[in-house]
């Protein structure tokens, strides 16, 4: 069940009505549990069994850790949980990647190895909920969280439908206590949640789906694409993935607020970042902080020597790359960010001689440089293979400066694409000038008729501008 479907809106309305009809916590949790499995099963009912198994094992692990009498037993329980979660990921997501990579490596060494591959469908959201439940068992092990003693509460926490499929990757310490206490309806929270959902629908349906044809036309036909076309497609992809992913998070957060549950913010205007470290504090915040707390800090973080710190950074970004996909170009993307983050750690991109005179210009240059690097790194993310990424980068680097090809660009675009680019321009301006707000339609201080007119315009504008494509899946569903 996709967020951007009428089916979901009807589903949400029914769940909302039933949820507040029975304001007792246990009844609400049971309702959320059942409806979350219905939501998840709508994709494929077979996935439900896997998620339930994962929930059951981690619930047992949490209780086991809490009741263990020795550190050894506690470690055993934790290891079981981590091994099971990573084992599931390894089986469903990485098995074929590793066997095929091993076979390719063996072939380069002259050995003929026939890779054994398995035909499995990647369960939707597996990367998210396995990491979420691992955070629970690790937090219980560390003593930062009490083990949950109610299976319904725990399963509802794991399967909570707004954030199940594509995040935010919630921490147990933030989300689980909300399931363990009574919830009250908060009108302000719910109203702002609706605004956030509206903004999310706009970003997904108009911008992300509207930019997709521009991106796909070039990335699916690299040999026939010119340097300027690929450069435009790269910039469009940067905004496509941002709008797509942040839209899902916005809708998820807004939906959760209807139930009195607060999810963590997942994006904070990442393209306004003035450095790479800043970018990673603003992009996919839930995953970045998870990796920081469970990988980077345990590896020593910034407390060790420069070499140790650099190693920790590289390993963290390597895992981030792997998390995103079982392919070498994702790994390369992660490593590239790791190297660049390690290299610029503790340094600023602002030019001192410029900062002293025009601080705003210096800041703008730093933002521009960061955005340019992130954009170019997205090529590794979007390209199907490393070879394709190399071709694109080469064309952009050496063939983007032919004025004739730039003049041809507008003609290559259809009417829908041109409209989308105009809307994108307005969106970029709103991102920059309204960056202190969570979203640009926080219009609570304006009179009611003005607010309603703005929302109405946004709704009908979205309906008018959204392209009529048949595939409207969110990009991060594939992870």
């Amino acid at each position: 069940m996709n967020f951007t479907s009428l089916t979901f809106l009807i589903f949400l309305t029914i769940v909302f009505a039933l949820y507040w009809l029975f304001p007792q916590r246990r009844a609400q949790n049971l309702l959320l549990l059942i409806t979350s499995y219905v939501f998840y099963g709508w994709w494929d009912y077979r996935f439900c069994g896997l998620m339930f198994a994962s929930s059951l094992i981690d619930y047992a692990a949490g209780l086991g850790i809490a009741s263990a009498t020795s550190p050894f037993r506690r470690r055993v329980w934790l290891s079981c949980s981590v091994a099971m979660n990573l084992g599931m990921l390894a089986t469903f997501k990485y098995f074929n990647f590793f066997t095929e990579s091993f076979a390719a490596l063996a072939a380069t060494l002259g050995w003929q190895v026939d890779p054994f591959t398995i035909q499995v469908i990647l369960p939707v959201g597996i990367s998210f909920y396995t990491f979420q439940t691992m955070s629970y068992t690790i937090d219980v092990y560390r003593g930062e969280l009490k083990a949950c003693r109610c299976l319904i509460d725990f399963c509802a926490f794991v399967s909570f439908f707004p954030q199940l499929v594509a995040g935010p990757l919630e921490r147990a310490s933030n989300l689980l206590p909300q399931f363990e206490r009574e919830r009250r309806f908060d009108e302000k929270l719910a109203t702002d949640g609706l605004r956030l959902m509206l903004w999310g629908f706009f970003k997904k349906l108009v911008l992300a789906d509207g930019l997709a044809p521009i991106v796909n036309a070039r990335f699916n036909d690299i040999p026939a694409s010119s340097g300027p076309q690929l450069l435009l497609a790269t910039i469009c992809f940067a905004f496509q993935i941002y709008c797509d992913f942040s839209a899902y998070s916005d809708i998820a957060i807004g939906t959760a607020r209807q139930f009195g549950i607060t999810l963590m913010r997942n994006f904070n205007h990442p393209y306004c970042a003035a450095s790479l470290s800043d970018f990673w504090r603003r992009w996919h915040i839930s995953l970045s902080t998870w990796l920081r707390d469970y990988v980077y800090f345990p590896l020593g973080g910034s407390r060790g020597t420069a070499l140790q710190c650099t190693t920790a950074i590289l390993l963290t970004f390597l895992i981030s790359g792997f998390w995103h996909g079982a392919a070498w170009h994702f790994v390369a993307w992660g490593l590239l960010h790791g190297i660049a983050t390690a290299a610029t750690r503790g340094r600023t991109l602002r030019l001192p001689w410029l900062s002293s005179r025009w601080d705003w210009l210096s800041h703008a240059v730093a933002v521009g440089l960061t955005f340019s690097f992130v954009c170019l790194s997205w090529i590794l993310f979007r390209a199907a293979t490393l070879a394709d990424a190399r071709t694109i980068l080469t064309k952009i680097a050496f063939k983007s400066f032919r004025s004739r090809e730039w003049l041809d660009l507008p003609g290559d675009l259809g009417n829908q694409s041109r409209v989308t680019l105009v809307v994108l321009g307005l969106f970029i301006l709103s991102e920059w000038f309204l960056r202190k707000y969570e979203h640009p339609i926080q219009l609570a201080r304006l009179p009611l008729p003005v607010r309603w007119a703005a929302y109405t315009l946004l709704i009908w504008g979205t309906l008018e501008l959204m392209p009529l494509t048949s595939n409207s899946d969110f990009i991060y569903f594939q992870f």
Partner: protein
Amino acid sequence: MKRYLLKLLAFVSLQCVLAVLLWQDAPQEPRSDHYLAALIDKHEALLHQPGPRLLIVGGSSAAFGLCSPIFQQKLQLTPVNLGIHGAAGLEFMLRHAERHARPGDVILLCPEPMLLAGDRMEPEPSLKTEILKVWPSGATYMPQRTTDFSVAKWKKYFDRLAVEEMQQRLRRGVFDAPKPQAPVRELPPPPSNRAFRYTRSGFNEFGDMIGHYTEKHKPFDMPRMVQLNEQRVEVAVSRINRFVENCQRKEARVFLAYAPLLEGTQPQTAELHSILGKRLQIPILHHPRECTFATEDFYDTPMHLGGEAAKKRSRFLADRLYEQLLVARVSGDSTIRR
């Protein structure tokens, strides 16, 4: 909570009112010269032409291969040629006609062989999209909405098609500035000094395609042999028989005429015609070999007769239809059997 729900209800009600206004106000007939937009004119004629009428139902062979004025002169009926494109599917054509059949109507069913063979009951998907783009109301006659309303189809329709229809109407309502007084057809004049193209303006007021009448024959490939599938033929036969019953209930009479046959291809369809002759409960005006034409009589495909051949065929069918109607009048029998 109460205040939140009331405000939400008020806001949603406002959007619903806007939606209804935009839905109602959006003009249903975009001013397009697209070939398929001729369906709008045919539909208008079907709704408003005074009776008694001769409704011609079929694909492009009916559009290209029949000359309505000849029928009008011979039969004293007002012709409405609904023929447009075989890939629209038999179901769509029959639904459109039977929904608006009136007492006293005579319906001449002349579908292409592939439709009679059951090879195209449903519309071809890309053609369906094109039809709905130019004539959204045509969705009413499309089969997918009401047959086999499985959960999967419901999900797909509800999730995308409903939104798509709303967007189509909204775009025309807001950006095409409806002019209620404007005539339905504000079209460029038919191309006189340019080569024939498939356009809405190539049709006459009866729905006959006449834009190609002055064009010369164009070489085309010979039609491929169609593999007959008895089950599919049975589906088509049942549907046609049901169409006949529905029309008879409305006191309209139905006759079948075969599509024009290219000389030498009669053996390919002999088996099909034999089955149809036995199973169809509908008067068939002629044997297929009585309506064969030479290659030069066709315009650009084995289904599209040129101008002179269309007139010749029309005279032949009008005579046969006249005989059948005369027999019916004399015998006082409104339900004719062959």
